[in-house]
């Protein structure tokens, strides 16, 4: 999205009549369980429908109902969809947090609030808009039980008036949100929407500068959360066995897998499933089932988050040594379970890359957007089967659980790569095989699947204690040969994983490197550095681990290379240190954010500015 045309027009037009068009963030502060999600999605979608680049981020507590929740919508004509640090337009619906919410606003921000909260007494440098929500909701919603929910749609109406959002788009978004089966509910909410709008039109006079204006930047695009995109990717990658144990933020991914599989993966003639999905008893079982299935030839999947990764550790090591494929989605979050489980983090980079005992290394994919969740799912299954090993796809809560605008997904044209599997006919022709012999020089042996009808098909699978013929061995040379071959296999993978995305600025002495969702903020930060500090930077976004040769080349082109990531300890940087030369390591600098929210551009900019001594 950062490739949009950036034009200064409309930035500000004088001081008194200053307008800020399509460049602000709205924050709605509510309590969870109050049903505000619908209203927030409608608000986001209507801005999207007006052709304006938009993103929505939900910050919610680990709780079912009653604790504070904030939903942030960012409209950006520049196409920046990372989190904006500053809130420009607050909708304060939660009395518990209202005073703090208002205190956090920058001077000149706007605030719609529930009238009895009397927030206007807090500050005199904001644009306040009181709305008596309780009075307004009565007439539009006769059933007292529903009022708590319908009330939310009133703020949508008020905001639509204040920001100049087209009410037709609001209505359209609302009916889309409720779907054809809930027309009654949609109509009830539509009444509330209009009531809010009318109240604002008659009682509020607009003094803040924020406004939307139609653009044409979202035509043809879709809105989807990363978890649904990952799920679709797996379904179209032909996953056949999927296992899981519920954990935020990965549960909604597996729930989407279940939904899409039911829709699209039943045999048209018999109605029978071309898949099996098991909700396992824990993550030890879910990954064990996935490995057993992969070993037996299925495209197998499991999804989890950090605590589940910890539990999977032993099995993933076995998968590595026994060379059984499976794909593991890690929707990263802050840990442990009693940490901030509903906040985002790039917290498992190091633990997944090296997960388990002995010398183990695993390939990782780092999608940054729904399109990549979809496409990388397909690639991950191919890689797992080609290299007969567990493969991780590292998304995070920000990507997985938030709604993103995206280009429609491209249908996967590449045939499935099922890897080196010998059939009974192959065995007949070859006269036999050695499971762990590196015949092709790529470190990958040929395997057979169980229940292959041939007397020469069987081999015995165990950890590292075997020779090339899969016979039991505790000999030093057999062990060393085997783990060296595994290392060689990992080296081969470097050429198979996707190349990084690179933007070289020939005049830049500094470069930024990041993975996944850090991308949005990193690109915006580069823009800020250029605009505000005249600092030119190059950019590299890694799409996968093992790192490819481009990484070292990029580092050597620059004096300082900032590794930007969302964890405290610089995990991505630590992973690079493991394989780089000291001279290259000396060029690396670290930019880290780890507060649990999606990283924002300003934080990166401030850190780089400080380190550059600007």
């Amino acid at each position, binding site marked *: 999205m950062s490739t949009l045309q950036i034009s200064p027009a409309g930035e500000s037009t004088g001081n008194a009549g200053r307008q800020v068009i399509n460049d602000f963030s709205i924050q709605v502060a509510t309590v969870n369980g109050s049903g505000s999600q619908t209203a927030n999605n409608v608000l986001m979608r209507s801005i999207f429908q007006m052709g304006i680049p938009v993103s929505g981020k939900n910050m919610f507590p680990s709780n079912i109902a009653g604790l504070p929740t904030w939903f942030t919508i960012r409209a950006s004509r520049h196409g920046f969809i990372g989190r904006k640090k500053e809130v420009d337009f607050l909708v304060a619906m939660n009395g518990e947090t209202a005073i703090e919410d208002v205190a956090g606003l920058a001077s000149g921000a706007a605030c719609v609030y529930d009238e009895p909260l009397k927030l206007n007494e807090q500050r005199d440098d904001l644009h306040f808009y009181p709305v008596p929500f309780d009075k307004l909701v009565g007439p539009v919603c006769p059933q007292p039980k529903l009022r708590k929910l319908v009330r939310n749609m009133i703020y949508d109406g008020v905001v639509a008036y204040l920001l100049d959002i087209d009410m037709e788009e609001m209505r359209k978004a609302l009916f889309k949100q409720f779907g054809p089966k809930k027309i009654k509910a949609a109509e009830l909410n539509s009444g509330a929407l209009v009531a809010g709008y009318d109240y604002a039109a008659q009682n509020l006079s607009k003094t803040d500068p924020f406004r939307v204006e139609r653009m044409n930047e979202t035509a*043809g*695009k*879709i*809105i*989807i959360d990363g978890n649904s995109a990952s799920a679709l990717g797996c379904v*179209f*990658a*032909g996953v*056949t*066995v999927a*296992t899981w144990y519920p954990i935020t933020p990965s549960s909604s991914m597996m729930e989407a897998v279940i939904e899409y599989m039911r*829709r*699209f*993966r039943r*045999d048209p003639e*018999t109605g*029978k*499933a*071309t*898949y*099996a*999905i*098991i909700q396992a008893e*824990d993550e*030890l*079982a*879910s990954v*064990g*089932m996935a*490995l*057993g*299935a*992969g*070993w*037996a*030839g*299925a*495209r*197998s999947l499991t999804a989890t988050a950090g605590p589940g990764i910890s539990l999977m550790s*032993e*099995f993933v090591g076995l998968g590595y040594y026994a060379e059984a494929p499976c794909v593991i989605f890690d929707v990263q979050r802050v840990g442990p379970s009693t940490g901030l489980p509903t906040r985002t983090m790039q917290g498992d980079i190091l633990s997944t890359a090296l997960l388990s005992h002995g010398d183990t290394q695993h390939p990782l994919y780092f999608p940054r957007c729904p399109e990549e969740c979809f496409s990388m799912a397909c690639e991950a299954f191919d890689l797992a089967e080609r290299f007969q090993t567990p493969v991780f796809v590292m998304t995070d809560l920000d990507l997985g659980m938030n709604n993103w605008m995206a280009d*429609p*997904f491209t*249908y996967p044209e590449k045939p*499935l790569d099922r890897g080196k599997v010998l059939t009974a006919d192959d065995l007949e022709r070859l006269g036999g095989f050695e499971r762990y012999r590196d015949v092709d020089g790529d470190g990958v042996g040929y395997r*057979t*699947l*169980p*229940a*292959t*009808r*041939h*007397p020469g098909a*069987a*081999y*015995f*699978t*165990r*950890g590292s204690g075997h020779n090339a013929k899969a016979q*039991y061995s505790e000999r030093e040379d057999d062990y060393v040969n085997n783990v060296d071959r595994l290392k060689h296999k990992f080296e081969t993978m470097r050429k198979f994983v996707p190349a990084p995305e690179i933007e070289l600025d020939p005049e830049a002495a500094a470069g930024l490197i990041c993975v996944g969702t850090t991308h949005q903020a990193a690109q915006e930060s580069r823009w800020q550095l250029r605009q505000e500090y005249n600092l030119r930077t190059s950019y590299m976004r890694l799409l996968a681990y093992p790192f490819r040769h481009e990484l070292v080349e990029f580092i050597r082109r620059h004096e300082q290379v900032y590794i930007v990531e969302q964890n405290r300890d610089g995990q991505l940087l630590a992973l690079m240190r493991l394989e780089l030369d000291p001279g290259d390591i000396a060029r690396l600098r670290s930019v880290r954010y780890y507060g649990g929210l999606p990283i924002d551009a300003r934080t990166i900019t401030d850190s780089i500015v400080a380190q550059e001594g600007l």
Partner: protein
Amino acid sequence: MSTTATPPPKKVNRLGLEVLSYKGSKTTLCAGCGHNAISERLVECFYEMNIEPWMVSKFSGIGCSSKSPAYFLNLAHGFNGVHGRMPALATGAVLANRNIIGLGVTGDGDTASIGIGQFMHLLRRNLPFIYVIEDNGVYGLTKGQFSATADLGSKLKTGVINDLPPFDCCALALEWGATFVARSFSGDKRQLVAILKAAIAHNGLAIIDVISPCTTFNDHEGSTKSYSYIKEHDEPLHELDFVPHFEDIQVEIPEGSSHDVRMHDGSLLRIKKLGRDYDPTDKMSALRVLHEAAEAGEVVTGVLYVNTQKPTLLDMINMVDEPLATLPTERVRPSREALETVMEELR
């Protein structure tokens, strides 16, 4: 006058395979270990049941018992997994390919200690799978510590007395959903063969707890899992005859003294009364027998329970008949139109 002596024709089963085709590598377990006897019975049973060995997949956890799949059925794939988690591997594999004849071999530590969680959940799912527990009351491979099936009061070689009550894997299996539950003794060839054959014929989860003495760490005076203790306390519930579906099953049996169970593949499990009346399709009486035996310090052996009606995991999932693992692309990748439909919904 030279005559070439024609060698006697080799003995083969109905598939034309010699018993050699069912053997494994040479065992590395201790001489006299009960586990070795069980491996031998497995070889015989699969041979005599005319099972294509390459259709079998062997699964195990970690332990002396879990090593044993290397010592039978070399023509079958095997997966020696991690300690206590063999059920997960087996579940995944059988889901991936429903043609697999799944056979798990595990120990009492592997199942009842570290693996009790996966064991219990396997029971609930009724996976079509044969699950053999080689039960010696100790961890053989780590040199003789108590496992969770060690009886109260049983004594280690070091003199340590077990003061925790045992898990009875058969009672757990009965309670939580296995559809074939049996207990046997590695030293009782005849009974063990009948039970294993019936388990092969069964469609559903078959749990077989085989008392399998550890000659090295748990075969002394004071142990309740020693050869001599089991020989003294073994109480067979009945006499078992297994008549496979491919044999003529006109066996004369006096009225009222036997209970026949027709297995899934058409075979007959003929249960001949010994002393007490026992109906192996009655779960409640099976549980009662186990509890009474525990009270009396007896080890009841035989087929405790058979249920040939309960749907298996595969039935419940309503999967296609072909193995999922080898479905062609067009059956596992939805169409272009399907993707377009979803995209349109999200616009």
